[in-house]
């Protein structure tokens, strides 16, 4: 009889804190706990009693890497609740802001969090000695995403200008033109990024779980659309709670999400590319096809490639939006009305749900937030249950690394989900002397 335990005390190069503890007996996973030990955050708790115009600033602080997503989703939900209509320019600027954050976040993940695994380094800084041009490219692309967020939102981390009803300041045509040129120039580097990721030794591992993403008939869905899945789910944000629920598990501060009557599911770039491949920009599609990897694809490690493909799309769509815009400051006012409203957007890491109930004074009476990582945690555990037996016989250090990589695929954000991750991989063999 052989008993092995894999323990990862903390998962590095992810946002937030989690550990993994696995016990494997005779090639079968006996126990597997992904423990999100990030302290509980209680945002849904303390948003109650705050005013509607404080919500976006507050939820932004759920996550420093995807603050735009939390802001936008809360604004959309509150606008639904209070019946606020926004202009086409506001919708365009919001999509631009969301895509800018995808560029920043995807570049961070592909180059700084994931690539070191595949290239055999402990961090991106350690890569700088051998791969300086790659690291410089990473920093340049990340800066582009940040600068675009800064231009539209006023600041890269926790933007300022995006509020209920519109934008407090709109960038000028000159400013937009300047960044448009940089985006256009970055296109080649985004295509290179696709080639780089396609050339990495992505582990062979397929698990055909349900993939869930927003979808729109005429564009690559980010801030608007219906929630669809590879198994026929098709719902609006308002219907979300009838179909998707969460349960608390004793080993984690992250609640576990599931589709009623079914199982865990995956959200994120791979789900999006699988479900919306034909809405990607033509060059993003061509770049994907050139890699020889086919979509839909159910190897979670292909998520890194999906991120790179989306980077190409981001640049194309940002340029398209900027060319279409006629930027001008807009007056808007918001009338406080009681109501309840929900919204779903695609954060860099996947489906993000917010819902609020506000009273006649504009005070929040109920808040409900489910982050992409909260959606994914349950599914990460399911992946690991099938993946661990395949790597359990590898040397301890390698098995641990492979498990960490399986988690990092999802680009998890444990602050967002803690409700969320500490990772322990114990690797002991009772049969060993």
């Amino acid at each position, binding site marked *: 009889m052989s008993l092995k335990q894999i323990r990862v005390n903390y998962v590095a190069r992810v946002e937030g804190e989690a550990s993994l503890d696995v016990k494997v007996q005779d090639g079968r996973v006996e126990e597997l706990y992904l423990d999100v030990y990030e302290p509980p955050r209680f945002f849904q708790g*303390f948003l109650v009693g*705050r005013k509607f115009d404080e919500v976006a600033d507050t939820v932004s602080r759920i996550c*420093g890497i995807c603050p735009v997503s939390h802001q936008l989703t809360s604004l959309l939900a509150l606008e639904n609740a209070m019946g606020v209509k926004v202009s086409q320019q506001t919708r365009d600027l919001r999509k631009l802001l969301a895509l800018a954050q995808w560029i920043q976040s995807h570049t*961070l993940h592909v180059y*700084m969090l994931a690539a070191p695994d595949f290239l055999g380094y402990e961090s991106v800084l350690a890569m700088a000695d051998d791969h300086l041009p790659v690291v410089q490219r990473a*920093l340049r692309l990340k800066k582009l995403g940040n600068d675009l967020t800064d231009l539209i939102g006023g600041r890269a981390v926790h933007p300022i200008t995006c*509020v209920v009803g519109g934008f407090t300041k709109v960038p000028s045509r000159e400013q937009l033109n300047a960044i448009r040129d940089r985006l256009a120039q970055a296109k080649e580097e985004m295509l290179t990024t696709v080639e780089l990721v396609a050339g990495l030794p992505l582990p062979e591992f397929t698990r055909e779980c349900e993939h869930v993403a927003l979808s729109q008939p005429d564009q690559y869905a980010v801030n608007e659309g219906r929630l669809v899945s590879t198994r026929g789910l098709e719902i609006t944000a308002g219907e979300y709670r009838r179909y998707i629920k969460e349960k608390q598990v004793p080993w984690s501060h992250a609640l576990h999400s599931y589709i009623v009557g079914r199982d865990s599911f995956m959200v994120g770039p791979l789900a999006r590319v699988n479900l919306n491949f034909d809405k990607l920009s033509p060059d993003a599609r061509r770049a994907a096809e050139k890699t020889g990897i086919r979509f839909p694809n159910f190897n979670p490690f292909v998520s890194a490639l999906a991120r790179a493909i989306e980077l190409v799309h981001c640049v194309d769509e940002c340029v398209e939006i900027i060319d279409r815009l006629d930027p001008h400051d807009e007056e808007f006012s918001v009338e406080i009305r009681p109501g309840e409203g929900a919204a779903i957007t695609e954060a860099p890491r996947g489906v993000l749900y917010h819902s609020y109930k506000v009273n006649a004074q504009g005070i929040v009476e109920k808040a409900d937030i489910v982050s992409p990582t909260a959606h994914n945690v349950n599914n990460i555990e399911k992946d690991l249950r099938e993946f661990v037996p395949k790597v359990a016989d590898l040397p301890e250090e390698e098995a641990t690394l492979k498990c960490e990589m399986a988690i990092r695929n999802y680009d998890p954000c444990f602050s967002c989900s803690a409700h969320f991750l500490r990772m322990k991989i114990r690797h002991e063999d009772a049969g060993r002397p």
Partner: protein
Amino acid sequence: MNDKPKLAVFKFSSCAGCQLQIVNLEEYLLDIAALVEISYFVMAKRENADAIYDIGLVEGAVTCGEEIEKIKEVREKCKLLIAFGSCACYGGIPSMKNLVPEREVEKRVYEDVSVIHSTKAFGIDQYVRVDGYLKGCPVDKDELVELIKSALLGVGPNLRPHCVCVECKLRENVCLFVSKGKVCMGSVTSAGCGALCPSLNRPCEGCRGPMNDPNAPSLARTFMEYGLTREDVARKFRKYAGETEAFRKGAEAV
């Protein structure tokens, strides 16, 4: 290489936005890495040394029993311990929950609260001695560079003691508070952001916490004249730095 000063970055209850500001130093990042050894930084590195660090940057508020133990251990390991961002300085956004009884906040999120060990959220100096404060939500990148430079030089950083209004005037902004009637926290809030929000037509929200010796009660009374309710005023002061004495006085003045 080994005689370079060691830098460590620790995360407590937070959004990781301040640590991300380190990575966001894009054009300076490799230069900084040439001057200091980034020795412990879990979000960015897989190999993290357990050592005595020359500079420790602590992000996040202390919000549970486990973190109280952890911050004491971190203090022992750092020669220079910096409260890195408004959460570590004052409790930040997590301290918004302090207004509600702890169990009630827990029950709003978790069905089974028996496994939750949360405490009121405070800045780290509630529990340990702190050598420096870098304010902001998130911290300002220029101030971060200033802090690292001054730490390497062994001098105090040049951070601003005055209020946001000074920087707002320097930028020649029309005053949102006096001229446009928008409720602004700038006159009691610590400068260093370059009056970023007012420059974008948004009143200051006080994310950097109190300036040196502010008159928060006076501002609170003016807020009432502007038509805010008592609850509105309390919410204004009890957001990013509601646990500081200065802002508490503002919240309780009306």
